[in-house]
């Protein structure tokens, strides 16, 4: 049925669209003219937009638009604007010694904010979002530092990393005592038993007394007579019951047998000096800083 556009609604006297749904009809209230023109203006605007901005996909490319707009350049502009915004504070962080940054409440807040953001971008994949660490990756919130927890030591570690190709990288391997033939396989449970007692744990097997002699002979050079560790050589404190690789008997035996050599990248090539300083202050302020 062709809709009858000329039908008038009996109650209001307004024309209807002629559409009829079970006796319900729709009033035909025309748009005001300015509304219609606004609608046409929007259509014209869309054509202008196609010309001005990237719009249409082509086979291997897309129409670039005459304004040359790109989201990538927009991001770059935003980042540049951010640098300008941070300018003063970044300059102060670059100029001041680490200890003074930490004593200045305003600068500490800024450094922690920059450090936290940078930590999330660069460090969190291994150390965790809250620097809580994971197996094989140390927790940075505690006061157990393998390579030292002072501001300078932390900065050195971040800048040059651990056991990598950087010239000033931290080095100091934990040898594979059995694989390299320094220790006999049978001695390992005794040594591991002694290491467990250092942290106040009971050995699961082996003779700790025999292990004590082996420790003095093989381990004390790096870990110290009492097993307190030595940050100069990256030898961890074995008495704190905080374990990077695990403190159970089997893991300790594995560590002695096969050695350890965890690595950390040097960040001096990727992060600038003020960012590394901010990161240092952030890590130091997590709680364990010395």
């Amino acid at each position, binding site marked *: 049925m062709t809709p009858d*556009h*000329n039908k*008038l609604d009996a109650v*209001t*006297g*307004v*024309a209807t669209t002629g559409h009829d749904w079970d006796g319900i009809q729709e009033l*035909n*209230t*025309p*748009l*005001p*003219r*300015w*509304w*219609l023109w606004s609608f046409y203006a929007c259509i014209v605007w869309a054509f202008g937009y196609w010309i001005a901005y990237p719009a249409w996909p082509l086979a291997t490319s897309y129409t670039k638009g005459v304004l040359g707009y790109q989201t990538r350049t927009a991001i770059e502009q935003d980042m540049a604007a951010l640098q300008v915004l941070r300018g003063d504070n970044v300059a102060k962080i670059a100029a001041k010694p680490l200890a003074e940054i*930490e*004593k*200045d*409440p305003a600068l*500490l*807040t800024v450094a*922690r904010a920059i450090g936290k953001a940078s930590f999330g971008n660069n460090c969190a994949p291994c150390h*965790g*979002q*809250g620097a*809580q660490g994971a197996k094989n990756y140390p*927790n940075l*919130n*505690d*006061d*157990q530092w393998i390579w030292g927890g002072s501001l300078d030591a932390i900065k050195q570690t971040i800048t040059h990393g651990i056991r990598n190709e950087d010239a000033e990288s931290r080095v100091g391997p934990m040898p594979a005592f059995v694989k390299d033939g320094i220790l006999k396989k049978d001695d390992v449970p005794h040594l591991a038993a002694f290491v467990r007692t250092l942290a106040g744990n009971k050995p699961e097997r082996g003779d700790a007394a025999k292990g004590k002699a082996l420790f003095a002979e093989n381990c004390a050079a790096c870990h110290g007579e009492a097993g307190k560790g030595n940050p100069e050589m990256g030898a961890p*404190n074995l*008495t*704190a*019951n*905080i374990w990077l690789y695990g403190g159970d008997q089997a893991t300790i035996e594995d560590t002695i047998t096969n050695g350890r050599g965890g690595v950390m990248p040097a960040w001096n090539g990727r992060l600038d000096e003020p960012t590394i300083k901010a990161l240092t202050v952030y890590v130091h*302020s*997590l*709680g*364990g800083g010395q």
Partner: protein
Amino acid sequence: MSTAESGARPPLSPVVGGLDEDIPLYEARKEIYPAAVQGRFRTIKWAILLVTLGIYYFLPFVRWDRGPNAPDQAVLIDLANGRFYFFPIEIWPQELYYITGLMVIAALGLFLMNAVAGRMWCGYLCPQTVWTDLFYAVERLIEGDRREQMKKAQGPWDLERIAQKILKHSLWLLIAWWTGGAWVLYFADAPTLVLDLVTFQAPVVAYVWIGILTFTTYVLAGFMREQVCLYMCPWPRIQAALTDEYALNVTYRYDRGEQRMSVKKAEAARARGEPAGDCVDCHQCVNVCPTGVDIRDGLQLGCIQCGLCIDACDNVMAKIGRPTGLIGYDTDVNVQRRIAREEPTYKLVRARTVLYSVLIVGIGALMTFTLATRTSLGLSALHDRNPVFVTLADGSIRNGFTMRLTNKSLEARPFRLELIGLAGAHLDVVGMPSTAEQSALLEVLPDQTRELRVLVTAPKGDAAASRTIRFRLTDVVTGATAYTDDFFKGPGSAP
């Protein structure tokens, strides 16, 4: 059929379209030339216009002394520093609920107005109405009243007409520009900004906003006018759903007005003892209407209820010696009652008016109470999520917190931060020397928040999974306190 006898409404005015004629795609606008009118409601509208625009244009220049560390502008929205100043009240972003409360009160006020007398907002207070009214006044001042304007619109573009148009639009743009100019003054120190604006030293954003508001004021009040009410505004639609039959509305009392006839015919009919309506069909009510509706069609979306038709009709009634009030604030219920020879009834006290009033008073009282009793210091703690606790080399347990100390007073204040509820533990603030104390002394600058990293360490052997602790902040000078409760987590298993 006499409508007066039957009590039926008068027939509606002719509508768009019709039989044997295609409905147009759009509705061409009907030009409106509202005539000047004098009377009670016109006077009220002038008064409201003067007061509201006066407040809007001049409020930024009102000063309010707050001391050396705060701006002295009575009303200021300081976006850069996140502060809103309103005379003695200063609101921080986290206190946005005060603004929410104000908006709830404003909405309820709108509902109450609506329950009492319909679209009072639309007719007297809405910025669209007020500015359009002002623009119409300027138009009449330069181009003359309704008749002259209509005559000129048909006439040639002579020099006088062109000069008048230029003058009118210049004045409109001046008002619009001042409107935008006043707007930006609420966001910065007004006298300084005015000086910066005239010497072209003001920030670009100020000029942009002045431009935007100049444009919107000029277009909305100069050209869009009643179209805003008819097509753009949601309030008439919502209002219709909120009203009831006892709300007073600008009403054509058709019980008195119908049948419409000329003065002479009505006198003759009355002399014969026949019924005659008071409406002489002079169209004065339509001529003065700023939205161009005919009030005699009854309550309708286009009617903003400004009351100008009441003034126009009263003037005519006085001239022809009939009682005024043919159009007036009334209800359809009363019109029907008069037809049925009953006394009119007015119900101001109804469930909805009482409810809205009680809610407005209640929320207002609650806000006043909280504003009067709020403290000038604040404390919040955010427990580290990862790790929730750390075991140190000596076996002690440490929890880390990010804390915010707020000093809302306008002087630097020394605060004492204390840990309560964890015997043997100590509290450290990063950046300050470590102590064995459970408290620390800190200074917070005026009107600022200081963020701290706070470490709480409990000695070895304390292995509970979780305990409630409290941080208390004391203003060392005034003794005022604030506190926040949190948890101290340990390696123990939960009970």
